[in-house]
């Protein structure tokens, strides 16, 4: 049996940080088990999406009028 000499790169990051690896961006997130995981980054908001399109989000009243009767399965 052979052994491998492994040296780890120490990263000074914490949950909520944005990191770039191999040209791709990731959010540092909780793995929900006490550790961390990398999740493909989210760098823009819902408001940004509307702005890029050239519109604005519906108001709560507009949303209720248009979608208030839609079903909701509670999943998310």
């Amino acid at each position, binding site marked *: 049996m052979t052994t491998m000499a492994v040296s780890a790169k120490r990263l000074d990051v914490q949950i909520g940080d944005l990191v770039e690896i191999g040209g791709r961006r990731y959010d540092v997130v909780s793995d929900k088990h006490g550790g961390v995981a990398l999740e493909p980054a989210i760098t823009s908001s819902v408001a*940004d999406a509307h702005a890029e*399109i050239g519109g604005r989000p519906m108001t709560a009243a507009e949303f209720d009028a248009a979608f208030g009767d839609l079903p909701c399965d509670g999943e998310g």
Partner: protein
Amino acid sequence: MATYGRGAARFAVRVSAAIWREEVERFAVRSPARVAAERERRRLEDDGLSVEDLQRCAADGAAGTRLGGLVKVYVPMTRARASQQPFGFVLSAGRDDRGLYLALVAYGERHPRPGTRSVYERAHKRLHGRYPDQ
């Protein structure tokens, strides 16, 4: 389009290039998730979505997500049972000078393996600036 409330219950769907890149192109080119999204994109942009295709997202979701004010459609967009639709688009309703529309805000797996965020958690971050458990 987007004349819901005046007889034609269909909404135009607008897709931001930045959102598409972060939500769909994060998946490998031939992965089932990416293939399914790319197959549906033309249909979304050409035909829009009928109000009958949509569900409201939950204001208080199972994993702590708070997505009130958003709607969703399961993918593949067929009349199949939800168990055969593993992915979802989450959309935010908006208004511009052409009328009402739906903007894509998140795409992904509804029930991913542990360690991967669901489409609902990603939509929550895009809406609130952080993940539900942060």
